[in-house]
């Protein structure tokens, strides 16, 4: 799904955190160039 794509990952602590999204992106062939997790509370 992400083969050959450069991916910026933005996660949220109470939703899905950045590293968890990054793992999925990497597993589906993407190249994660930035991972950021935010906390909105």
């Amino acid at each position, binding site marked *: 799904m992400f083969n050959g794509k450069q991916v910026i990952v933005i996660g949220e*602590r*109470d*939703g*899905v*955190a*950045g*590293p*968890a999204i990054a793992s999925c992106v990497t597993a589906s062939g993407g190249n994660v160039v930035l*991972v950021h*997790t935010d*906390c*909105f*509370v």
Partner: protein
Amino acid sequence: MIQPVIKGVSAILAHAPSFIRHGSKPSREIGADADLLPTILAHLRSYHEALSYAPHQVFVGRIRPNKLRTLPTPWLTHPVAPERFGPFGEILPEEELYGLLALADEFRLLALDSDFTEEVIKRLADHPMLHSMCLDPVREAGRRDFGESLNSASAMPLFVEGNRLIGAIRRGQEDDESLAAPFLLENLAGKATGALALLHLASRDGLSLDAVEYVLGCSEEAVGDRYQRGGGNLGKAMAEMAGCGNASGADIKNFCAAPIPALVVGGSLVAAGVFENVAVVGGGSLAKLGMKFRGHLKHQMPILEDVLAGIAVWVGRDDGRSPRIRLDSVGRHEVKAGSSNQAILEALVARPLAKIGKRITEVGIFATELHNPEITVPQGNGDVPLRNYRTMAALAALRGEIDASEIDAFVQKHGMPGFAPTQGHLASAICFLGHAREMLLAKEIETVQLVAKGSLFLGMMSRQSDGMSVLIEAQ
């Protein structure tokens, strides 16, 4: 092992609408666009409006959280009885907050208008606890020339009623950024509101201030000078201000999660026989005032993040009736656990319960992030408690404890609506502890699991988040 119990809980709010401009987000945005200030000032709530806001009455214990489900929404436009005092504490008016700040100010940083100071002293003389304190520090603040302070570019002006200039706070040292006026104001606000919560704890639950041996601070501020930014020990500072002459203290830092590790450490100190009476105290976060003001303005709402909070918990030896802290049920989010929500809740909810032979569905109520959705939804941040409860329910479904079709019913039965102001650490599970104690004492429920999370990745020392949980059980 001595069984540690929760012998008392207090919770206070201090109405601080004129401090919103000093909150981190508003102050940065006003700095970039001065025209924003009149708009912010036009969207402040009165004290009466803050008193009649249902989530605030939940915070101080007059209304149970689940009662919010039956009240008409939005709560903002459906006021409830505007009571100042509740079973856990009070909602302090802004004028008296200034008096409290002056009482907390050991280094003569504050200067206040003399007429305003007279007004404040009259009010403090009627306060059920503060009237017995020596009010000389307030009088002295009123004798300092705040105009002279403001001649220094590094002092910060202070306001009441939105835009009435009534004082200033100066910086601690000219060449120390850690002692700049905005940081000292944040720290004083944390100290003052935490100490007020400690005073309420003593007045309500029979705690003798002389009997407190250790105060664990669990707030979010960073007290310290340039050589030890964040050095801390607001715990001892709050103990001193409240009159706990026999106490020492220290701080437990863990972002929003800190109160739960502090409760566990406090319980462990009692269990080990090190201390008989420990107070866990968190003061308010001034930086978070007005954090989501853009969302509120966008929806033509008043700015709802206009209160500082404070909570104090008395942890003591088993008295045969108070709810027990189950130290054998502590859950921690291990480094290797991973950052997905499923991994976090496995670590904080399922595994610690399994350790003591309990299933998720056997817990009466879960207290998680309990931020008031009326504050977060307008900014686009969603209903945080609901999201957390649904994830817990999904975990119960994954483990075969409930059917996927029962997720909503799980949320209804084991959850509650969010009611806490976005005061970070105090919204993170601990704000339910006063209600939990009353409900456990009345045997309305048998168990409550407190589940707190903290975003340590914000400090850029690790990409990890953290969390801790503990089960509180009726006798």
